[in-house]
Every structure is written in structure tokens, then in C-alpha cells.
């Protein structure tokens, strides 16, 4: 299959219009049109500032503007009102509360010894997961990192399955074999959970290719599935990231690369690890739009996500979205979190996405305290029930040890007695010599 199948005449415009976004950004507000549409995306109107000071000076009022919605850029954190309906607002709120409550419960369970291994919590970053994943259909794919509990929950994996998986029980979404860092779900198209940074991005690229192939070559006209790849700021210095940006832009794959820039890679600050800390700029270098958005504001994230997902669905290619966000806890539950400045933590704690959404909904009369409290209570009960379910579930049987290494257990070969090893009755007990 040649690349001309995926060629679109408007691709040249993207490259031209996104050129100047990499240039000096002091005077102009660069814009770029999404291919084939009248939607415009307004980029970060940066003042000239050096990368080392960029955290303080960086404007956070980045917003996606679409002609249809006719928004005005204001200095308030929330642009316009009626960005969401009441139902949507409650859905977003519930999802974020679920993420936060679940992660807090994970921490409790870990310290009680019910959970073990390396657990990485998502507190503070809920806006990104909710903002993006709640826009997806069931058939859209999500590829995540080791900080994947909340991505799984947003995508629709039941909380009880995620909790069981964390406890290592058979009823978990991966039957207890993956653990915290390897959440998979065929039903919800969650393609992992990767302990290794950057390993998921090429896999997401492959998933997106399948979707494009199904539509363009196999002529399944309704196949417009989009893939979202989530990863962090540290990953953006890894070769696999760049290789995939190139491939995705080259073949115009329906993928959205979402960078959850929480400024820290364990103990390595993003500014000190990256030559140009503004990750969104790396998109135009490869021929795709690069967008920076305030990842602590779920409404802004949702606006940007809508544009990017729709762009991918239309077949116009990939987008790179950098979400400026923050994790309130340490890198993992084993991390004492001593390196981060308390004032930085306080700054971001004040921008807690859940508090912000609550305030927005109440101020704009979309919901009242009572309704929100009811949601919180409901989620509390859900998470408690998930823990009870996980506690009551059985541990995996020994026979599960040797399953799924190969597709066909005959792959273990012939044993010393000349028969297939898997036919040895002790094989499934895990005691046969493999």
C-alpha cells in the first residue's frame, strides 16, 4: 500500500501554517487551521521568556477557539459559559471524583499491605483523563503508562475490576497477572498500562494505523476510531516518541498524542532534562499541530480534545497536545517526594481540577451543592464496594502460572518423556519442569 492512498492535498497547508509556530513568539499570535475545516486553533500567546523561567511566566489561559462557538479570550480561567450542559458537567465531575477517590483508596490499601509492588497515583491530573477520555466511543483505543488506573476508570473499566487487579486477584481486568502498571481491557479498548516509558507510543501508532487501514483500504466506511496515547514529559526525550511523531504525521494516522507534563520525572525536573521544555513545539517540527493547554482545567482540556479527536476522526491526521498538569503525590507510593518545592506544590494544589469544576458549576447554576455531594457519596460507596469485592475475590490458581506464555501451550515444547509438556498433568499445577 503506497503512501498516496493517505495523501491529502491540504496536508501542505498544515506544514506551511505550522512553520511559524516554531519561530519567535513574542509578537504574533500564530494560528493554524485544521485541515479541511473552518475551525481555528489559537496557540499560546507567549511573551519572550527563557525556558528556565517558563513555569512562572507561562500563561495558562490557553484555550482552543472554534469559529462555530465564537469564544472570546478573557483573562478569567474559564472562557465563556455554557461550555457544557448540566449532564455533561455532572458526568465530568463524577468521573474526576471517581479518579480521586479511587487513588486515595489505593494509597490506603497499599499502606495496609493489601496491594504491593510499584503503584503510581494520578491525584491532580484527573482533568486530563476525564477531559479526553470522556469524549471517546467504546471502540476508540487508549494507550497509557504506568499511571493508568484513572485512564482505565475513565474508559469504562469497572472500579471493582481495577481494584481486584491491584490486589492481584483473578477477578481483575487482567486476571491478576498485570498489576498496577498493566491494565488492559479488550471490551473497553484499553491497550495497556506500560511500565516502560515510551513503549506504548509505537503500539498506539499501530492501533491508529489499523483504524485508518480499515477505513481507507478495507472500505469500512464507519470505522473512524481514534487512538489516544498518553505519556509524560520525561518520555518526550525518548527516541520512540520522535519516531512515532514522524510515522503518524507521514501516514496521517488518526491518533492524538497527549503529553501529561507534570514537570517531574521521578526526581528529574523537566526544565533540566530538556533542551526546549515546550513540548508542543515538537509537533509542528514533524508536520502536525502542536497545542499547549492548561491541564488543570477540565473544560479547556475538553475543548482542545474535541478539536483534536474530531480532526483525527475526519482523517486529517495526528495532533500533539501538551497538558500542563501536576501530580499531588510522589512519583509512586514508594517515593518520599522530597525534591519538589512546597511552593510549587501549593501553587498547583490551588488549581485542583475538581475544586475548579465544582466552583464553575455552582457559579453558573449548573448544579447545586446537594447534587455534587450526592455524587461524592455515590462514588465513595462504589469504591468501598470495589474494595470489598477485591478482598473477597480469590487469588489466581497455580494453573494460571503457565497460561498465556504462548498462544498454544504446545509452544512449551516436547518434554523429556517425548510428549508435549502441556500434556503432563503437572504442567497446569506449575510444578512440571518447563
Amino acid at each position, binding site marked *: 500500500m503506497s503512501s498516496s492512498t493517505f495523501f491529502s492535498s491540504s496536508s501542505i497547508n498544515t506544514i506551511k501554517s505550522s512553520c511559524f509556530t516554531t519561530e519567535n513568539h513574542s509578537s504574533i499570535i500564530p494560528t493554524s487551521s485544521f485541515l479541511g475545516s473552518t475551525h481555528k486553533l489559537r496557540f499560546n500567546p507567549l511573551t519572550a521568556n527563557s525556558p528556565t523561567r517558563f513555569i512562572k511566566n507561562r500563561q495558562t489561559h490557553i484555550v482552543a477557539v472554534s469559529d462555530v462557538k465564537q469564544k472570546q479570550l478573557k483573562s478569567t480561567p474559564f472562557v465563556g459559559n455554557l461550555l457544557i450542559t448540566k449532564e455533561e458537567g455532572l458526568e465530568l465531575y463524577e468521573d474526576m471524583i471517581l479518579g480521586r477517590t479511587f487513588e486515595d483508596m489505593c494509597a490506603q490499601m497499599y499502606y495496609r499491605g493489601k496491594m*504491593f509492588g510499584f503503584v503510581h497515583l494520578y491525584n491532580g491530573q484527573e482533568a486530563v483523563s476525564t477531559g479526553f477520555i470522556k469524549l471517546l466511543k467504546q471502540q476508540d483505543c487508549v494507550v497509557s503508562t504506568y499511571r493508568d488506573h484513572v485512564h482505565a476508570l475513565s474508559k469504562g473499566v469497572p472500579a471493582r475490576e481495577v481494584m481486584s487487579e491491584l490486589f492481584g486477584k483473578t477477578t481483575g481486568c487482567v486476571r491478576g497477572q498485570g498489576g498496577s502498571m498493566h491494565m488492559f481491557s479488550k471490551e473497553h479498548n484499553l491497550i495497556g498500562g506500560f511500565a516502560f516509558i515510551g513503549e506504548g507510543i509505537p503500539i498506539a501508532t499501530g492501533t491508529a494505523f489499523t483504524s485508518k487501514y480499515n477505513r481507507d483500504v478495507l472500505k469500512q466506511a464507519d470505522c473512524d476510531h481514534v487512538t489516544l496515547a498518553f505519556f509524560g514529559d520525561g518520555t518526550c526525550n525518548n*527516541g520512540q516518541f520522535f519516531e512515532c511523531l514522524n510515522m503518524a504525521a507521514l501516514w496521517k494516522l488518526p491518533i492524538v498524542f497527549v503529553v501529561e507534563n507534570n514537570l517531574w520525572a521521578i526526581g528529574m525536573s523537566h526544565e533540566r532534562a530538556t533542551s526546549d521544555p515546550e513540548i508542543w513545539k515538537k509537533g509542528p517540527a514533524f508536520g502536525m499541530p502542536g497545542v499547549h493547554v492548561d491541564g488543570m482545567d477540565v473544560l479547556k482540556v475538553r475543548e482542545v480534545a474535541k478539536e483534536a479527536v474530531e480532526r483525527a476522526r475526519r482523517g486529517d491526521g495526528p495532533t500533539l497536545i501538551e497538558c500542563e498538569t501536576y501530580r499531588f503525590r510522589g512519583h509512586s507510593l514508594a517515593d518520599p517526594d522530597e525534591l519538589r518545592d512546597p511552593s510549587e506544590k501549593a501553587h498547583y494544589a490551588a488549581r485542583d481540577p475538581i475544586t475548579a469544576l465544582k466552583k464553575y458549576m455552582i457559579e453558573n447554576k449548573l448544579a447545586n451543592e446537594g447534587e455534587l455531594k450526592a455524587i461524592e457519596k455515590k462514588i465513595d460507596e462504589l469504591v468501598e464496594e470495589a474494595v470489598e469485592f477485591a478482598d473477597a475475590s480469590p487469588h489466581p490458581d497455580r494453573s494460571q502460572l503457565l497460561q498465556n506464555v504462548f498462544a498454544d501451550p504446545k509452544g512449551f515444547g516436547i518434554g523429556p518423556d517425548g510428549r508435549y509438556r502441556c500434556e503432563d498433568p503437572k504442567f497446569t499445577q506449575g510444578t512440571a519442569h518447563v
Partner: protein
Amino acid sequence: MATGLTRFGRRMRWVPSVCNGRQFSTSFCDKDHNPPAKSFNLYTAINQALHIALETDSRAYVFGEDVGFGGVFRCTTGLADRFGKTRVFNTPLCEQGIVGFAIGLAAMGNRAIAEIQFADYIFPAFDQLVNEAAKFRYRSGNQFNCGGLTVRAPYGAVGHGALYHSQSPEAFFCHVPGLKVVIPRSPREAKGLLLSSIRDPNPVVFFEPKWLYRLSVEEVPEHDYMLPLSEAQVIREGSDITLVGWGAQLSIIEQACIDAEKEGISCELIDLKTLIPWDKETVEASVRKTGRLLISHEAPVTGGFGAEIAASIVERCFLRLEAPVARVCGLDTPFPLVFEPLYMPTKNKVLDSIKSTVNY
């Protein structure tokens, strides 16, 4: 000076009395011949070795992910403060880049000590190690070499690491001519072996058993000393069966030996220390004495380094062997999460195998 020793191009012993061939147990310390040693654990011993390496060679550098604040296992604490950020620095998250960059440094005559945060993450760097580091001297006709390269990585099971924090990839590197693979079993060994590895004129991959970072405590001399590479050590003498292992697995095998002793089986235990080039003579001499061999390692059994040892010993001692060479290793599955106790070559598995080999 220590760097001068490497010019002789051979393994040199720094303090002869400490590392004479046969010692009886890992905790034996020559109090009479050496200055008094204090007890340290494994990561402190490695930290001391790194301090000494950077002190004695002004062109030695330590870098990797998060080494600046001390590293996730605290092996590099204090180095950045003492030697400055130009010599001890953090790299971005790119293993391939880290190792390739280290090879370049080493090619220019520096001592590059690269840390890979977990041995499981060494695979992106596998290409650089196998295709570049191992072949550098060979393909440049000895005009250049990357002997100053040492790659340190914590390896092995830790109880809760699961698939990507517990692997033992030593076998992959043992298949590469041009590299050396060194694995210490305890703090004192680690310090001496690490200093030897750093000063060895060949690229070395140094795997540290992460399980032992805090658990293993031993008396470690505080001065600069090196232990010879490619020399195995008999740490327990016996006459019925030879057991070979390395790293954290040795403590498991030793417990099995003690249990076997109670049943009247006298076990000889050898710590291989350097996996390639490995000390065939010591193992062969021991097998000639006992007639039986058992190898134990955490990595999966098929294609693990035990296979190489078994094949070589059978080739050399075929007529002397009284039982097939036994291997008690990890199962042929990816490293499991909850099934770790089933996967691991535990003391009981080793003991069973000892008994069945002796009673063959």
C-alpha cells in the same frame, strides 16, 4: 595509582591477603592483615566504590536517570555534592542515548560509569552495547576502544517488582564477545568488583542484585581495593556436589547447602562473580573433585547462563560426571506478579535437586 595498574593489561590484585583464591565464607574477614572494617550494606559499599573511582580518576563520570539526588536506590548519594554537577549528572529518559553517549565518552579515554535505573530498562540500550561497545576495539583495529565504559544496573527479583522491575538479563550479554559481565554477591565483593570493573580496560556490564541493597550487610574495608575479575571463588568446601551461582541466588543456595549438610551431603559452593569470561578452571577442578554439578540462577532456565556452564563442564569432565548436570532456575515464563514464589528457584527446589542429583 590504581589507573596505572590497568596499563599492565592484566587483572591486578590490590591487597593480596583479602582476595586469595579460596576463602571459606562470605563473612570471613582478615582482621589481622587489614585495617578494621565497619559494616555496610550493599548500596553503601557501591557508593563508596563510586566515590573512590571518581576521586582517583579525574576523568571519571557518573550519569544516568536520577543519579543527582542519589538515585532510586541511593547508590549515588553524595557524589554530585562532592564532585560537582559536571561529573555527576542526570540524563533525560533515554537508555539508548545514555549508553551510546557513554561509549563515546569512553572512546575518548574517559571512564564513563552509566547507570541504567533497572536492568529491565537496558533493552533499548542493547543495540548500543552489543553492536557498538562490544565491537569497538575490534572494528577499529585497536585504534579506539571503549574500555572505560561500565554500565551499572540493579537486576533480579525483589519480591514485588513484577514483570519490569525484576528481570535478570545477564544471559543476553554473555552471548556477546567483547563485553564482560560481573555480578557481586555481597557488599565487600561489590566494592572490589566494581572498582575492578571500572578500571578494567574492557566494557563491563555490572549487575547489582537489588534485593541485597539493604538486606546484605558485611564488613567492608574503607580503603581502595580491587578484586580480580574472571576468578571464581569457592565459598564453601565440600565433596559430594558442586553448586554454582551468582548474585542474590547464592544466599538461597547456601541455605540449601546448610540443609543438605544435615542430611549428610557435603556441598561445595562456588561464586562465579564474572560471568564472561568465566573461570572454567575453578569449576572444572571442583567438579573433578565431586563429580556432580548443579547450577542455579533466577533467569529462565532455557538459554540461561547455566546452559553454557553445563555444556562446557560436560565437554571437559564427561567421564568424571556421576549424574546429569542439574539446573534449578526460573521458569520459562515472563516474570510473574503474584506467582513470584512459584517462579523463583527457591531453597526447597534447590534442595530437592541436590538430593536427586546425589542419589542419581
